[in-house]
């Protein structure tokens, strides 16, 4: 079996995808997903602004902590007496167990939108390397025989791709994840939202595919 020219057996693909999902989260501390990255690139202005705030917070960690503490005490004074006494009592209990001041927690600074763009580009590079190493690279102006039989090969096909892309773009932002984000990462965290989203998109894709097969 030539792993470079033939499609991978299920266990190898499973290993590879799992390695990416687990390795990414483990080494970068953020869950692996692609639709979120598209969202952050689209919202690059807001990302840059939030990043700038986070960088200031990280640089001035001690002052940030001081302000948080001062504001906490001020907010405490504004509580109704009953609640204030309760919170203060809980605070005293906690204080008894440790020193009053501890090192400030570090503010995580999000990646620059350019890093997200680099990630997207690297996925394309992966595809390039796969096609090159299997000797199958070539400039192709179709999406395979099945696709052409359904949607033709000219502007009608291009329009379907664009519309399909729009569905993916809107759908993933609306659902908050894609096959990787919900399908792998979300489901493996046993999240009900991901189970639901995955069921929804798989079921729809299956139904739509049967319809295309029957009608087109």
């Amino acid at each position: 079996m030539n792993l470079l020219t033939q499609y991978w057996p299920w266990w190898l693909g499973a290993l590879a995808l799992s390695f990416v999902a687990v390795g990414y989260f483990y080494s970068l501390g953020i869950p692996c997903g692609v639709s979120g990255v598209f969202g952050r690139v689209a919202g690059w202005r807001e990302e840059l602004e939030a990043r700038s705030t986070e960088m200031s917070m990280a640089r001035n960690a001690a002052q940030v902590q001081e302000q948080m503490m001062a504001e906490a005490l001020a907010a405490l004074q504004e509580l109704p007496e009953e609640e204030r006494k309760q919170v203060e009592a809980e605070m005293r209990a906690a204080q008894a167990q440790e020193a009053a001041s501890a090192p400030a927690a570090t503010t995580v600074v999000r990646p620059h939108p350019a890093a997200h763009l680099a990630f997207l580009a690297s996925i394309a590079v992966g595809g390039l390397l796969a096609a090159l190493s299997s000797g199958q690279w070539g400039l192709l102006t179709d999406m395979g025989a099945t696709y052409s039989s359904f949607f033709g090969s000219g502007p009608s096909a291009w329009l379907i791709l664009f519309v399909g892309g729009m569905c993916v773009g809107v759908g993933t932002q609306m659902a908050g994840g894609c096959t990787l984000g919900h399908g792998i990462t979300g489901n493996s965290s046993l999240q009900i939202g991901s189970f639901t989203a995955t069921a929804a998109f798989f079921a729809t894709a299956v139904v739509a595919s049967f319809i295309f097969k029957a009608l087109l």
Partner: protein
Amino acid sequence: MACSHIPTCPLFKHFQSNATLRSWKLMYCDSDKRSQNCERFKRSEAGETVPPNMLPNGKSILL
């Protein structure tokens, strides 16, 4: 039940540092009812972006 946004809240881990900071947690994060008052929670529920330096009572950390 504690605030459902705790896993992703960037401020929450700051609230663990000492007893004074923990009061934020006690005032806003520890129960569903309290989290309804959190400005950050309210904004995300309304689909708005939450500035990284906004405290639960709506005041901003000056930088």
